[in-house]
C-alpha cells in the first residue's frame, strides 16, 4: 500500500549495519572507519537513487509521512509565537492553529493547518480536516492581520475540509467561500507554504496568497487521489492511478504558474531532517517577506489579482489563440 515503506526498508537495513559497525568499533582496537565510510557512501548513493525521482503516488505518501514536520513544527521555529483561539462564536477548531509571531525582523500573523502526529492527536485535531468553525477562525485571524497591519503567513497541510454532518449543517461551503474572499482581498502581504498535503478547497481556503511556496515533496491537488478515484471511477482504491493523472507535484504546479517557488527537501524527505527543513523554510519565508515589503499595497493587490486572473488553460476560438498559463 505505502510505496515509501518499501523503499525505506532497504535504507533502514543499511542504517542498522552502519550503526552496528560503529558500536562494534567503539572502544575496540580494530579500526573499521574505512568500512563505515564505504557503507555511508553506499547509503548516500542508495538514498539519492531512491528519492531522486519519486512517483506522484510516492510523493503523496511523503507528504503524509507521520514524521514529516507539521505546522506547529514550523511555528515552533518562529522567534516568538502568541497563539490566539476561536471563531468568536462557537468553537476553537484545533485543526487550525494561529496567532501572532515574530520571524527575524518581521512581526506577522501565522495560521497553520495542523494534523496529528499520532493517532491520539489526529483524533483531537480531526486529522487536520477543518470544520466551518476552523475556517471562520482562520478568516478571523487573517482579518486580524489586516487590523494589526501585519503580513500573513499560512502553512497548508490537510487532506481536505471536514466532510461530516455537522460541518455541512454549519455551512462548510459558506465558510470556505468566505475565507477565499477574505484571502483574495486581504490588505497586507500574504505568503503561503504548502508543507504537506494540500487537499482541494479545504487547502485553497488558506492558500490564496501573494507568494505560494511548496516543499519539494509536498502535494497539492484538486482532490485527494482517493477522492478523485472515487469521483471518476467509483473506486477509491485506484488512488495511485489518479495520483499519476492529477499533476499534483510541486514541479507540475510550478509549471502551471499555480505556485511561485519550490523549497528543496533533504534527500529522503523532510522528516529525515526536520530541523533543517524548518530552518530552510523559515529562512525562505523571511526572505520573501523582505521582498513583499518592497511593494505598495496597491501593487500587491493588483499583482495578486493578475496572478489568479490568468490561471487556467483554454482555447480561445475567437482570438484563435490558447488561453493563459
Amino acid at each position, binding site marked *: 500500500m505505502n510505496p515509501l515503506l518499501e523503499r525505506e526498508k532497504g535504507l533502514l537495513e543499511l542504517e542498522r549495519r552502519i550503526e552496528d559497525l560503529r558500536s562494534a568499533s567503539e572502544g575496540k582496537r580494530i579500526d573499521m572507519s574505512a568500512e563505515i565510510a564505504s557503507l555511508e557512501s553506499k547509503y548516500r548513493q542508495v538514498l539519492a537513487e531512491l528519492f531522486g525521482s519519486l512517483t506522484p503516488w510516492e510523493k503523496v505518501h511523503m507528504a503524509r509521512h507521520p514524521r514529516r514536520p507539521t505546522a506547529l513544527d514550523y511555528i515552533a521555529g518562529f522567534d516568538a509565537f502568541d497563539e490566539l483561539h476561536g471563531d468568536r462564536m462557537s468553537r476553537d477548531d484545533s485543526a487550525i492553529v494561529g496567532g501572532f509571531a515574530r520571524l527575524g525582523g518581521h512581526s506577522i500573523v501565522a495560521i497553520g493547518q495542523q494534523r496529528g502526529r499520532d493517532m491520539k492527536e489526529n483524533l483531537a485535531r480531526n486529522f487536520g480536516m477543518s470544520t466551518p468553525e476552523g475556517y471562520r477562525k482562520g478568516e478571523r485571524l487573517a482579518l486580524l492581520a489586516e487590523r494589526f497591519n501585519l503580513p500573513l503567513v499560512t502553512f497548508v497541510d490537510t487532506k481536505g475540509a471536514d466532510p461530516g454532518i455537522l460541518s455541512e449543517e454549519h455551512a462548510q461551503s459558506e465558510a470556505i467561500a468566505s475565507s477565499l474572499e477574505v484571502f*483574495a482581498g486581504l490588505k497586507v502581504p500574504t505568503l503561503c507554504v504548502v508543507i504537506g498535503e494540500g487537499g482541494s478547497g479545504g487547502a*485553497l481556503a488558506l492558500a490564496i496568497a501573494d507568494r505560494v511556496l511548496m516543499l519539494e515533496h509536498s502535494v497539492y491537488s484538486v482532490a485527494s487521489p482517493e477522492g478523485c478515484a472515487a469521483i471518476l471511477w467509483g473506486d477509491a482504491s485506484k488512488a495511485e492511478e489518479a495520483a499519476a493523472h492529477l499533476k499534483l507535484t510541486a514541479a507540475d504546479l510550478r509549471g502551471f504558474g499555480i505556485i511561485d517557488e519550490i523549497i528543496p527537501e533533504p534527500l529522503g524527505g523532510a522528516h529525515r531532517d526536520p530541523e533543517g527543513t524548518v530552518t530552510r523554510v523559515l529562512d525562505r519565508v523571511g526572505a520573501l517577506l523582505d521582498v513583499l515589503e518592497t511593494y505598495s499595497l496597491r501593487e500587491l493587490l493588483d499583482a495578486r489579482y493578475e496572478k489568479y486572473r490568468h490561471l487556467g488553460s483554454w482555447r480561445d476560438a475567437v482570438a484563435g489563440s490558447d488561453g493563459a498559463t
Partner: protein
Amino acid sequence: MADWLRGGRNRDKVRDDAAQWVKCPSCGEVLYRPDLSANLDVCARCSHHFRMRAHDRILSLVDGDFEEIARGVLPADPLGWTDKKSYPQKLAADAEKSGMDEAVLCGFGSIGGHEVALGVMDFHFRGGTMGSVVGERLTRLIEAATARQLPCTIFTASGGARMEEGMLALMQMAKTTAAVLRLKASGEPFITVLTDPTTGGVSASFAFQADVILAERNAMIGFAGRRVIEQTIRQRLPDRFQTAEFLLERGHIDGVVERANLKSTLERILGYARAGRERRKRAELSA
C-alpha cells in the same frame, strides 16, 4: 425571436419520438416533453423540478435577446488526461449529447426590464463541473458586469471542480472569487440561484459569496457529496439532508423559490438593486 435564442431551441428538433416522453423520477407520471418544457421542466403533477438546460433557463428568464459573451472560450487539455477515454473525447461526447460546448453560458440580457449579467451553468455537460472554461467565462462575465455597472446573477449547477483539469480547475475558485470581490467593491450586487445539484468547488466559492442566495425547491446543495459523508459516518443520511429546504432552516440561504416564481422574484430583487444604484448615482452627482 433573436438568433441566440433560436439557436438554443433548434436543438430540440433532432430528438427522436421516443425521447418525447419522460417519466417523472419523483411521482412516476409519464410526461410529454413539449408539455414539460412549456411548464419550465416542472412536473405538472408533483412539481418535481427537472434539471434545466442552460438555454431553456435563459429563455425562461430574459425579456428579449441575450448577448452571449466568452463563447469563444473553449476547453483545452492541459493535463493530457486519459483514463477510459481521453478528456477531449469526453468533452466531445458531452457536447454531442448536451448541445453545449461547455458547462456554462454567460452573457447580458434583461429580466423584467432590468439589465443584468447572467451566467447559467448546465449539469448536462460534464456534470456542471468547473474547469478553466467555466472559470474564465464566469470571470469575464463578472468583470464585464463590474465594467458596465450591472448586477450579476449566476445560476449554479455543478458537481464541483473538474478532475480532468486538476489544480487548474481548483484555481478557478480563486479566480472567480477575485472577480466577485471587484464586483462587490464597485457597489454592484451579486445574486446566485442554486439549482440541483450545487456542490464542491462551486458551492464553496461564488455560489456562497453572493449577497442574495436563492435556491430552487428541493435542489441538493452541499460541500461534500452525500456518498462521501455516508462513508465517513458509516450510516445513511436522512433524505432531506442537503436539500434547499434543509439549508433554509439552517439559515444558509435567503430563500427557496419555485421555478415558476423565479423570474418574478429576480425581477423584484433586481428592482431593489436598481433603486440602490440610483441612490448611488444621485450621491455621486451631488458630491
